[in-house]
């Protein structure tokens, strides 16, 4: 390999490095955007939940949160979701899902699957799959959360099941576990509450962006409602069931956004690894380059040296030939 080739290689490498850098920035930007969405949804969810809790505390006899009565048998329903694409990582996630299924889910539980892989898995384990949906139902979020919320609403009201959980095939890296959320019954401890800090919110620059302004208004109004002075239309139980529906949808949306963020984080990590590898390669290349240049310069000095020797003997030194040799070496 000569210096020219090495130089070309180095150019290519630095191009790729820049490319990776740009990709990293794009991924970071996406992560920020998703984080903003996640925060908004969490604020809204927490506000809704607190409001419902206030009503529940005021009228505990109404059992607005559908707490299980004593002696009631738990009947569980699980939603299982496929990974969005199949690659090396999602294979690991599917393995994790299989572990979880064989450990936690019994044949008495109901299972609804979204996507082929989880369905096959559930059938192998002989779980009670009551319906399989294609994965596209999950990818189209609005429809998905409406659908799942409707199933929960109808199933719980008709006493078909009384506990619902959703399991996504995405790993939550901070806990090294699949993303799971309890959707029914709604429980204070199992809901990831994100309290809204008014002062901090007002300072933040993001306040400028459209959604946060609306979110802010929403929270402020709902926080200050005096529930004793409110007329519920048509009645409070209908309100509670609709509100629960909305919170369930928000939890699903939150889980999905979370999954997206984890996916992006993974992408970011992979890019970082790629960059490190490229940097290593570059270092090696530079070392190579220096070595070859050193070799070349020694050859050159040797040539010059011999040329001097020749010039001492002959009056006409063949300098031109030496130059040609240099260029071709």
């Amino acid at each position, binding site marked *: 390999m000569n210096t020219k080739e090495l130089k070309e290689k180095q150019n290519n490498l630095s191009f790729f490095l820049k490319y990776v850098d740009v990709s990293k920035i794009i991924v970071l930007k996406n992560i920020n955007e998703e984080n903003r*969405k996640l925060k*908004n*949804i969490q604020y*809204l969810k927490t506000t*809704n939940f607190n409001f419902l809790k206030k009503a529940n505390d005021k009228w505990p006899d109404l059992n607005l949160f559908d707490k299980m009565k004593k002696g009631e048998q738990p009947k569980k329903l699980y939603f299982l979701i496929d990974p969005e694409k199949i690659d090396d990582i999602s294979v690991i996630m599917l393995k994790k899902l299989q572990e979880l299924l064989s450990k936690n889910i019994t044949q008495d539980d109901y299972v609804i699957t979204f996507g082929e892989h989880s369905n096959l898995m559930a059938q192998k384990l002989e779980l009670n799959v*009551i*319906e399989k949906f294609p994965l596209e139902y999950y990818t189209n*979020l*609005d*429809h998905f*959360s*409406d*659908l799942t919320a*409707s*199933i929960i609403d*109808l*199933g719980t009201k*008709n006493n*078909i099941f009384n506990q619902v959980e959703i399991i996504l095939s995405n790993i939550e890296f901070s806990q090294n576990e699949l993303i799971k959320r309890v959707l029914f019954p709604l429980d204070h401890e199992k809901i990831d509450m994100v309290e809204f800090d008014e002062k901090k919110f007002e300072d933040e620059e993001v306040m400028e962006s*459209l*959604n946060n*302004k*609306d*979110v802010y*208004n*929403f929270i402020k*109004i*709902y926080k200050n*409602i*005096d529930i004793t*002075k*409110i*007329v*519920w*239309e*048509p009645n409070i139980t*209908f*309100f509670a069931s*609709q*509100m629960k*529906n*909305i919170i369930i*949808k*928000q939890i699903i*949306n939150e889980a999905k956004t979370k999954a997206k963020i984890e996916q992006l984080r993974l992408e970011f990590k992979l890019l970082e690894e790629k960059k490190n590898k490229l940097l290593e390669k570059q270092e090696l290349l530079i070392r190579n380059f220096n070595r070859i240049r050193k070799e070349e310069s020694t050859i050159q000095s040797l040539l010059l040296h011999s040329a001097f020797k020749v010039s001492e003997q002959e009056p006409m030194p063949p300098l031109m030939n030496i130059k040609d040799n240099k260029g071709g070496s």
Partner: protein
Amino acid sequence: MSKNLIVTTTINPDLLLKIYNSNIEELVKVVVLTLDYKPIELFNNRNQKSQRTNKLSMFDVAGLIVTTMKNPDDETAKPIKMKKMILAQDVSLLTENNVDLLCLGGTFDILPNDLILEKYKNIKEIKNTTLEELDKFLELPKNESSIKAYLKLTDYFSVKNYFNNNNVLKLLDHKSEALNVAKKTLIKSIIAWQIRK
């Protein structure tokens, strides 16, 4: 700018952009059409002195007619009025002394303006419009008319079926059919509201 009227999409705040951009547009008026109540008109610049009872209403489905204004304060640009007709699920309306807060807690469809414009041309046509003709504006199976859907529903609520039917997914079908029937009725209400004006 006084804000008496606020609209949010609580499941996904970003979806609000589909309806209007609150940075450059201002809400003027929202009409809420429901199956159970009289049409409710909400204005952004309402007389603040009027005392009202606090009320929180919830609707399974509601038809909304949202009027917004572009460039409300800009004197150099012409204000542009926009009207959007929306069918929304899980809608809540909170009425407080000074504020009306409308939350869309589910999916919503924005009806194409052409639908309404077409119907404006010939009012006679409206009277004869069957619910089936409105099918294509909802994501419904084409082979099933709303009448059929409705019949199925009443079928379902017969005593015999009611006790035997414990399959959630069947229930789900019935619910979505009920929703579709409700939505179609609301489309008619929306058109009727537009014509009445």
